[in-house]
């Protein structure tokens, strides 16, 4: 797991941060070592590139690469036969104003593995959900789950540890309108999503914007058409989203960022289909990260309807 930025500096979630304990406690541990211990633990002070090896050893070690002052960027590993913990400050990929390739405390990657059992490869949560489908959650629960975006099995279990994650993590895992391609997106309120439930009247997956038109009844039965905007068609295809999953006539609950300018308009965050399954686009940020790191891009929630938690 990881994130960028690490500290949210503006907006309604200003001040939120993630991975600070993991960063600061390790630094305090290093600073508490005597000279002899430091000599053994510090493998090098040149932390000019990314690390993370995800290997396993035969004893318990604490290893460090990088500086040790309060603002240093560094890598550390705690490694034993039963657990591997890695923490790595890396270069920025999305924040403006940060020089590319220069490591920063605003971009952190971590790995936790328990190779003797319950390792993330087993994906216990997925197995559990396949055996015991959960009912559709409350909106509050759903919002919480957005902080724990289940984008890819390997990430799922670790993200549930971050249900109080900041908007920084949310930004990493879900495509924000700011990452959308057009300026109308600047008019969406990204802080607090809303939920509308209705019948899909039109479904247009196209460029430069995809749209659904949804007939939403109120408590008195009066129906209002909502316009749900989504990413462009080409991007959805590249990100392996099943663009035909929502069809005209389906009853769908959309979670949206509402337009600041126009009534009854919102930007797609996720959809809960009639059977309770969740549908979402894991987003450009995740896709870009996979491309930059030359790893396989996965977005189960886009390729099929995932079980609702």
């Amino acid at each position, binding site marked *: 797991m990881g994130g960028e930025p690490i500290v949210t500096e503006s907006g309604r979630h200003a001040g939120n941060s993630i991975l600070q304990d993991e960063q600061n406690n390790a630094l305090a541990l290093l600073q508490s070592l005597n000279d002899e211990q430091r000599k053994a633990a510090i493998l090098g002070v040149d932390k000019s590139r990314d690390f993370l090896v995800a290997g396993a050893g035969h004893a318990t070690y604490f290893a460090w690469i990088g500086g040790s002052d309060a603002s240093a960027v560094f890598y550390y590993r705690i490694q034993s036969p039963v657990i591997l913990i890695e923490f790595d400050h890396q270069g*920025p*990929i*999305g924040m*403006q*104003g*940060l*020089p*590319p390739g220069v490591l920063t405390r605003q971009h952190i990657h971590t790995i936790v593995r328990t190779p003797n059992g319950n390792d993330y490869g087993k994906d216990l949560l997925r197995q559990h959900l396949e055996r015991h489908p959960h009912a559709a959650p409350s909106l509050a629960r759903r919002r919480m789950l957005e902080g724990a975006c289940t984008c890819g099995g390997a990430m799922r279990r670790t993200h549930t540890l971050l249900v109080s994650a900041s908007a920084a993590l949310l930004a990493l895992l879900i495509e924000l309108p700011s*990452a959308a*391609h*057009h*300026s*109308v997106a*600047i*008019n969406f309120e990204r802080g607090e999503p809303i939920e509308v439930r209705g019948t899909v009247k039109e479904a*247009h997956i*196209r*460029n*430069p*914007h995809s*749209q659904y*038109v949804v007939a939403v009844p109120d408590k008195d039965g009066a129906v209002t058409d909502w*316009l749900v*905007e989504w*990413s*462009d068609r*080409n*991007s959805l*295809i*590249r990100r392996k989203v099943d663009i035909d999953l929502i069809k005209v006539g389906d009853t769908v609950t959309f979670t949206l960022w509402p*337009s*600041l*300018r*126009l*009534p*009854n*308009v919102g930007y797609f965050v996720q959809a809960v289909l009639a059977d309770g399954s969740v549908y979402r686009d894991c987003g*450009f940020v995740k*896709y*870009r990260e996979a*491309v*930059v790191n030359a790893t396989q891009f996965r977005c189960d929630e886009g390729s099929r309807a995932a079980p609702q938690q």
Partner: protein
Amino acid sequence: MGIGRFQLAPLLACALIGTASAAGTRGDLDGVWLFYGSQVPKDPALTAAGRDKLERYDPLRDDGDLKCKPVSFTRIMHTPSPPIEIRQKGDRVEINYEFMDVHRRVPLAGKLADVPYTVADHPHMGRSLGRYEGEELVVDTVDVEAGYLDTLGFPGLPQSAQMQTEERFIPNGDRLRVIVTHTDPVYYTKPMVMTYDFVRVDTEIMEWGCTIEGANYDNRLDAAKPK
């Protein structure tokens, strides 16, 4: 054995060709590239006229996307998802932007004021002329239509018809950096420099196929009343 007059000419020609090739060594720019990061100035240093035009920007009226109009190359490069494709030909460089199906042709010889519009079906994007400096491709652009330069990084940044732009394409293996310098005395007090970073991707440019109906939400935005 001496070199005769008619033997010397082809040798001299070969030497000249070799010199030109060395001076114009083309970098490894060919391929498809995906945007992954940018640096834009925090203060665009607008003139009073620039601030006035920025304040009057209305995305529902001025956003070119709603009209299937690619407003500027800066705007296109700042679009995160659709990739760009670069193909270096003998006398030109072809840059194809998936966003809005922009097919740009940049000649490598001629006078900037006389070369054809760089995008045949979008003359508002001006005229471009390219050259190589070492492995870097440098593209100068003039004769753009007055309007708005970029609607994403800085929504509503203006551009005048006097704006001159230099794009410097700097290859580095599977990474590409494009440094863009806009010089516009009407709206900016100093040159504005933006940096865009790309990564080479194994994909092909797809058709964008923008339609007015799709771009303007089937006219629903026009019908909607602002909150």
